[in-house]
């Protein structure tokens, strides 16, 4: 003790009740209502807050400009609009397939699972598919198992847009754009279940993939290529050529 005064023994009067020192109880509840003043200062403050978040704010207009990213044709007249556009569509873009993702984390996961051949090799032997929820360290053998985990454990929607299984790069149907836009009214209303976030919206999207995984890369392989199944492939009849498709 560094005080100049000695501490004396506590009062031992038998008639004085224990002195209430710690007044925690009436104050401990978060729903604390002051006895006298009817307004809790904080809630008044919150009610008074009128920010511009919910409504479209009055943005300062600038002369129209175009997004400078190659291949993007969006035009803007407000900087904040451009900012959001940039972050949404150009910030976390896969350099291999140009898909855009909402976060660096999802982009990294995508690159690993879609474009890393080492990943594919390792995935044959161990659990490589990481749970998408930040903070969850579980890994899975297949993307389907991971999806099940996301749905069961994390209550994610089964059609979560940022967990599409790796698709075939099938040929793009010429009429795909019209297909997307001309969905019947009774449909479930979601615009094309195609891959998440193509970069520039005007481009056509690949047709909706069927559920489940497909083997990757089932391109039309030119019949002149053979994969060691005998050299005499050169000029085959139409019937056999179909087999290689």
């Amino acid at each position, binding site marked *: *003790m*560094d*005080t*100049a*005064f*000695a501490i*004396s023994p*506590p*009062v031992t009067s038998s*008639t*004085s009740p224990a*002195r*209430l*020192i*710690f*007044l925690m109880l009436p*104050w*401990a*509840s*978060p*729903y604390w209502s*002051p006895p006298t003043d*009817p*307004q*809790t*200062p*904080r*809630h*008044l403050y*919150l*009610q008074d*807050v*009128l*920010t*511009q*978040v*919910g*409504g*479209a704010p*009055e943005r300062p207009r600038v002369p129209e400009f175009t997004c400078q990213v190659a291949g993007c044709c969006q035009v803007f007249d407000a900087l904040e609009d451009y900012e*959001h*556009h940039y*972050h*949404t569509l150009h*910030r976390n873009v896969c350099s291999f397939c140009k898909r855009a993702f*909402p*976060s*660096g*984390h999802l982009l990294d996961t995508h690159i690993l699972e879609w474009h890393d051949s080492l990943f594919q090799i390792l995935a044959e032997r161990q659990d490589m598919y990481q749970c998408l929820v*930040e*903070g969850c360290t579980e890994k899975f053998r297949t993307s389907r198992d991971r999806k099940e985990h996301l749905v069961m454990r*994390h*209550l*994610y929607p089964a059609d979560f*847009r940022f967990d599409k299984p790796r698709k075939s790069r099938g040929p793009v149907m010429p009429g795909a754009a019209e297909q997307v836009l001309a969905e019947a009214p009774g449909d*479930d*209303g*979601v*615009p094309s279940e195609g891959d998440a*976030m193509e970069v520039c919206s005007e481009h056509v999207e690949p047709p909706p993939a069927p559920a489940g995984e497909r083997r990757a890369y089932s391109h039309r392989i030119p019949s002149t290529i053979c994969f060691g199944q005998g050299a005499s492939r050169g000029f085959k009849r139409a019937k056999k050529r179909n087999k290689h498709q």
Partner: protein
Amino acid sequence: MWSRQRGRLKPLCCGVEELRCRRREREAALRKARREQQLVSKRLLRDEALEEAEEGCVAMIFGEAEIQQFLRLAQRGTEEKEREGALVSLRRGLQHPETQQTFIRLEGSIRTLVGLLTSNQALLQLEAARCLHELSHSEQSAVVEACLPATSYLLTYLSGHSSDFIELCLYTLGNLIVESEAVRRQLLPQGIVPALAACIQSPHLTVLEALGYALSQLLQAKEAPEKIIPSVLGSTLPQHMLQLLQPGPKLNLGVAVEFAWCLHYIICSQVNNALLITQGALSTLGLLLLDLAGAVQRTEDAGLELLACPVLRCLSNLLTEAAAEAVGGQLQLRDERVVAALFILLQFLLQKQPSLLPEGLWLLNNLTANSPSFCTSLLSLDLIEPLLHLLSVSNVVLTVLCNVAEKGPAYCQRLWPGPLLSSLLDTLAFSDTEVVGQSLELLQLLFLYQPGAAQAFLQQSGLQALQRHEEVAQLQDRVHALQQTALHG
């Protein structure tokens, strides 16, 4: 909000009467909510000027056909401006509860909205998010729960980079959290705590304030102590929160207010206050208190009392923890400046927010209870008389004086003589048994340690003052004991 507000001038087109009327309505709603034990507070995120302008439009209630029209246009319109415009119109309509009901009952509507929320068109995405935000304001749980399919996406977007968008998602989440336990039950397994822990590292003040709001709503949930606070304490959130409360050039008032309240809710839950103490909560809050006193003296921005309230409560509550003493918690605050700062704040509160005075005194009580050095500070800074002025505010003043007197004769000597006797004789005239009881205890201590006190008491007709309480059940014993001591020493 704070940074915005400073820059914005409220439009003068709103009549003063109108403003008053609105404020009255809000106050009525608050009182109603409090009566119903629901201290919920939803952010009203509307531009006041915009509200004025849209008054005409908002009056319209949209029916099914109109809503379908807007959705179709938003989804399949050819012109981007057209699509955006459709969503803007929809959003305005959704300010109306009836339109909200119609919307959620329309098959596929939420699904479409979520589709637009996750679309590859940034501005459509933003407008869709604003529509969701309108829905989140609803006080009907059906409307709020209709937004459940969107939550995983709102969380995903928290790790993005567009600060405006993140802010919007956070306020929306905060509103949804307040209204529905079903939403909270879903958000926790979806990973809201790690998402917030990552997001709190954002450098944007607007994002931080929004995060503080969302987190504070989460922490106020009735199931928070069992289901939410343990995982919050297990994350990096508390450390980041304390960092954001550090005084210094980077301290932002709006952000600090939010996180001070968050801290308050965590501390009140009493889940693991010892952990907070080891993370330096006491010293951070103590420094913040000093900083507040300084700010108050510089007569800075309005709203300092909004920060004072949670800081006072947090400090007071933490001081009651055994851990506070164990780590020499008092040592961390062992600073005469704390007492001085507190009194500066009390002075300020007297002017600005008298309702907070009891809380300030409560902190003083907890400071002095176990610490002779704080009692010494009180005496050497000559604060007894100012303290006595606050007797009418709260009888905690008496408890504080008891804390001082109880420390021994040397302390009582400093309390006597002075205005104390006359103040005590005054309090004996009250009929409030608590006040009188506390006064009796103080007198007992004074008589014990300061012989002259009893004589002075008798000379000033103290016995007569005691007589009126002789028959009061709770006070009888103490009255008699005091009479004995006074007469026979």
